């Protein structure tokens, strides 16, 4: 009874923040905190409800209900509906999102209100809508609804990144973020349409859903169902569909080559960055892969590509983070890199690992951003780490929380990031060893990235908090209030301990220690649980992954070896940074990179070529089209009209005014007619 009541209330999880959006939008300026309180109440309510549904799912079953038929009826080929799907995955994500949204709202009180910013009602309205969209996306029960909220998430991120619209930078960054993700969403949209055209439904599944497209696809592959595959082999077509949807994922989750928007998005207010990076926008991408994992698990090609993209992005972004000067830039690249890991996990067959890393990352990245926000408040919105230093003593709460998050990010045992990253690498490794060189390559890249991650994380911490203050503001930072410290404290604890939900290595030794997350995800509804995914992954008809072991170490041996290697690399990276940047007055070492330095500072020239594509090339083509349009097409129209007028002008000159000429022309005309018709009618024969 209790759980069904929880499910009844579940839509309110998204509706509450939406209401706060409306309140802030319409009445925000009259409210004491300009809508912040409303937002906190709403997200707090969402958090409670989410927790309740989580509990309900835990004690009872998953739940699916169609709430609203967007398009349906007897005339319609297939219905388009909105509904909610509450299963272990979505409820977990709901809790994460609402937690972080709640904390971000609270933090915003300190970051925005206390700072005397203008436009706060707009800020809280957008924040509310952002949260609502993401929550709606998370519990969507079909791909179309997911797409719709996915787009709304994009809109809100556009609005929030461009919050400080009076400056030049934020609107530009907002535009870039929306455009790049829109480019990815283009493929996603084709995918959605393709899914409808193929299966006639886009339901993810869940209790009560007989024919989810995931399930139908599975049956089609084993020959138990037949669908229109547009002339392709079913598996090829499903791979294509999967990859199309993946386009949206890569755009939102900032995977190479769509990652360029994310560093620019730092132009937005820092709490927004925290929300975007930890729980909403960026997380939406990988969440979608997890959500329809049963579909991806059907296609080894799609999985391999996901893994490869993830591994490459992890490494690629990590190397760029190494040289950044601004604290938020480092964090931005670390986000890209970490989502690369999650992709790597999902592509490598580690569904649980992916979700695990998604969870831990949400906490420690939100923490890091809020910590950075705290630092930025203290530094009067100066983000350059080379102007900081020595903040450790001035702001201990921030420091320790930030340190907790950093160690998690670097993957140092026993912080949460270690456990999840380790599992990611392990899953990829074993499946790679099972006979997939692509996975091994992806694993290798992920592994190397661990080293860089350790390096840039520790570098960031050292430069920010240690040593002597390198500027006057750093020497006398602005104090922060409870509303900043409390979220940091909460998240600091979470970042440190969240790993307990899936202590795989410990479980391998002491089986009494539970793998909570593993069990949690494995107990989902039919077709939507980890167990089923595992079957799909290992079934030759689908992905066909097999597990291998490292040098005959056995399963447990491989597990520990993998953990050891990654931990060693993380420590190595951290130590290197410690060596280089320790001391009261650390030096820049970027010159040692030689020719690599400009390449890294310029982010491998990714921006340049993309800007060239978006502006240089496209605008040139557009201009060309414009010239063609005005010159040729419109020119033809105008030419016809001038020609008519010109010939009209010539024609009227025939009328010379001399009547004898008229008589002559008249006679000529008559004669011509006589001759012509004479010949035609044969009068002269």
């Amino acid at each position, binding site marked *: 009874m209790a759980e069904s009541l929880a499910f009844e209330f579940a839509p309110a999880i998204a509706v509450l923040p939406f209401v706060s959006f409306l309140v802030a939008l319409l009445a925000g300026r009259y409210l004491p905190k300009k809508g912040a309180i409303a937002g906190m109440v709403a997200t707090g309510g969402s958090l409670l409800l989410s927790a309740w549904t989580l509990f309900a799912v835990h004690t009872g079953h998953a739940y699916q209900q169609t709430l609203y038929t967007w*398009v349906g009826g007897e005339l319609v080929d297939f219905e388009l509906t909105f509904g909610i799907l509450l299963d272990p995955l979505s409820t977990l994500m709901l809790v994460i999102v609402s937690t972080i949204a709640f904390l971000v709202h609270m933090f915003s009180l300190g970051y925005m209100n206390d700072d005397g910013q203008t436009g706060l009602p707009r800020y809280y309205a957008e924040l509310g809508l952002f949260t609502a969209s993401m929550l709606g996306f998370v519990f969507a029960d079909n791909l179309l609804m997911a797409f719709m909220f996915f787009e709304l998430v994009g809109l809100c991120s556009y609005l929030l990144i461009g919050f400080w619209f009076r400056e030049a930078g934020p609107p530009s960054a907002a535009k870039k973020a929306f455009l790049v993700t829109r480019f990815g969403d283009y493929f996603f949209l084709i995918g959605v349409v393709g899914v409808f055209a193929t299966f006639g439904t886009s339901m993810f599944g869940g209790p009560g859903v007989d024919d989810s497209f995931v399930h139908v696809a599975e049956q089609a592959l084993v020959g138990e169902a037949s669908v229109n595959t547009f002339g392709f082999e079913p598996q090829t077509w499903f791979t294509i569909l999967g990859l199309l949807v993946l386009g949206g994922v890569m755009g939102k989750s900032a995977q190479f080559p769509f990652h360029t928007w994310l560093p620019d998005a730092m132009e937005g207010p820092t709490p927004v960055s925290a929300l975007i990076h930890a729980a909403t926008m960026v997380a939406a991408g990988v969440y979608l892969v997890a959500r329809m994992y049963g579909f991806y698990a059907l296609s080894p090609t799609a999985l391999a590509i996901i893994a490869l993209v993830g591994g490459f992005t992890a490494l690629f972004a990590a190397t760029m983070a190494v040289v950044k000067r601004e604290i938020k830039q480092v964090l931005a690249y670390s986000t890209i890199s970490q989502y690369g890991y999650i992709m790597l996990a999902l592509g490598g067959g580690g569904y649980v690992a992916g979700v695990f890393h998604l969870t831990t990352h949400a906490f420690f990245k939100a923490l890091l951003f809020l910590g950075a926000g705290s630092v930025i408040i203290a530094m009067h919105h100066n983000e350059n780490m080379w102007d900081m230093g020595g903040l450790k003593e001035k702001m201990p709460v921030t420091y320790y929380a930030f340190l907790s998050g950093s160690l998690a990010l670097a993957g140092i045992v026993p912080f949460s990031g270690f456990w999840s990253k380790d599992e990611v690498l392990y899953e990829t490794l074993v499946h790679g060893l099972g006979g997939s060189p692509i996975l091994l390559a992806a694993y290798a890249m992920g592994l190397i990235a661990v080293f860089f991650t350790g390096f840039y994380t520790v570098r960031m911490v050292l430069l920010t908090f240690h040593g002597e203050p390198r500027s006057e503001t750093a020497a006398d930072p602005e104090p922060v209030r409870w509303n900043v410290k409390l979220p940091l404290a909460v998240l600091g604890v979470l970042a440190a301990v969240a790993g307990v939900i899936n202590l795989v290595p410990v479980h391998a030794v002491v089986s009494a220690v539970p793998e909570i997350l593993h069990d949690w995800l494995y107990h989902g509804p039919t077709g939507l649980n980890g167990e089923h995914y595992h079957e799909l992954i290992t079934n030759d008809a689908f992905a066909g992954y097999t597990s291998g072991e490292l040098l005959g170490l056995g399963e447990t041996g491989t597990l520990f070896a993998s953990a050891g290697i990654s931990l060693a690399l993380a420590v190595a990276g951290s130590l290197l940074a410690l060596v280089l940047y320790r001391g009261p007055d650390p030096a820049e070492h970027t010159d040692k990179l030689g020719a690599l330095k400009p390449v890294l500072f310029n982010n491998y020239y990714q921006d340049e070529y993309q800007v060239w594509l978006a502006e240089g090339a496209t605008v040139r083509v557009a201009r060309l089209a414009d010239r063609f349009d005005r010159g040729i097409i419109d020119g033809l129209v105008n030419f016809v009209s001038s020609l008519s007028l010109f010939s009209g002008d010539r024609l009227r000159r025939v009328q010379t005014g001399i009547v004898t000429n008229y008589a002559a022309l008249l006679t000529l005309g008559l004669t011509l007619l006589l001759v012509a018709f004479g010949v035609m009618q044969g009068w002269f024969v």
Partner: protein
Amino acid sequence: MGSLAFARELRRATSCGLPPWGVVRMMLELLIALCLVGAFAVFVLPDEYAPKAAFGISLVPLVLSLYMYLTFDGVGNALLGGDIAFESQYQWLTLGSYDVSWFMGLDGISMPLVVLATLLTTLAILASWTPIDMRQSQFYGLMLFMEASLIGVFGALDFLIWFVFWEAVLVPMYFLIGIWGGARRKYAAIKFFVYTNIASIVMFVGFFGLVFGLGDSISSLALPEIAQALRAGELGSLGAFGPEQLALLAFLAMFVGFAVKVPVVPFHTWLPDAHVEAPTPASVMLAGVLLKMGTYALLRYNFTMLPTIARDLAVPIAALGVLSILYGAMLALAQSDLKRIVAYSSVSSMGYVTLGLVAYTMYGTGGATFQMVSHGLISGLLFACVGVIYNTTHTRMVGDMSGLAEKMPVTAGSFIVGAFAYMGLPLMAGFAAEFFVFVGSFDAHFAYSTVLTALAMFGIVIVAGYLLWSMQRTLFGPFRSETDYDVTTASLHDVAPLLVLLVCIIALGTFPYDLAFERVLDATEPILDTTVAAVGGGS
């Protein structure tokens, strides 16, 4: 209870005590008469009373048409034997052996368009209060006259009546552009006038080819009769042309004729000039309603009457649609005049309609019709926004201003939301329409439908590109204006149209089926049943 069922319920409830069918059926005539009488009244009013009088007068048809919408009880397609709502038919003329009658009525396709016309007219009149500062009574009189013609276009079910209204629309538009337009208004007005007039005649010739090809199998120019005869394969030969040839030629002639109005690339070049020069309220009407006449006619004539030809020619037509989408969007990208940008994006958006129509699927045809309404609202909104901006800044060039969001928050907000609606953001009308079209055309009957649809979807990326770019340049950044005018927040009657349109767009995007799509589908569904249609044979 579906909304259609609700409407019928309401009709039953409200018609108690009202004079039954007779009067209620004359609703369309009442609308047109009101607009015409209002137009004449406004014409003779002094200039200073005209704006408010016109607004007041235009509210009456708006409210009436909303009432009609709510109590709409049509079933099926008006041309294909459905129950026609608000039907009236009186003998008027003869053309040789064919009867021409005053034949009006609505079905699920035309009903929403009538409401669109009345709504946008009212809002455009409201949006004219600020910018129109001379010869007001003439201006508002012409607006009302145009409204009457537009209602006539969507309501007429007899070819000649329809054609009268179809051409009558040109006249007020010519004056609106010519008198109250920008610097090159005379060029734009005459270009619009002549270009679309040629198209009408070409279309006329094509249509009469069909009429005479049908010969004795029809006895009037009533569109339902002609459509049903054509679909029953009654088309005979005319002169040297056999039935197939005749049908093909007629189809092409009508297609070209309507394509100019839509406009389909490469027949579009009148549109940017007309839009740029027209006063903003006229642009609202032009983009919002007048372009829909083209697609409405395409649907009613080409795609309803000659489905087999349409299906045979699906690939080139769809390719033209896709070309319009992409090429129009690329052109919009190259512009720096806000109105030109929106004008070209109209070309682009109307391409979706073409694509949807040719798909001959439930979602395709229905979505195309839905897109007509949705694009009417959205482009109307964007043009109105540009107008409000122009009212205060006196420039439309993207480079001439920036940071307007600070000075005019509501206008800027409406512009932003409108732009996102244009980009097809979910829960707004544009997304619903475009998604229906894509779903409908993705696995349509013709070759390459998948590829063409995928190409068409790329339009959503380009549209985002140029709209975001122009918003970034004009609305955001530090405030700056090249022109020496005091930029302040717009007055209520300026922003009220924007807000009304916003509400409509969001409502239509969130509840598409209940608000409109059900009615639309009810009327478009019979078109899809092409099994009976076979050209040739004759009788």
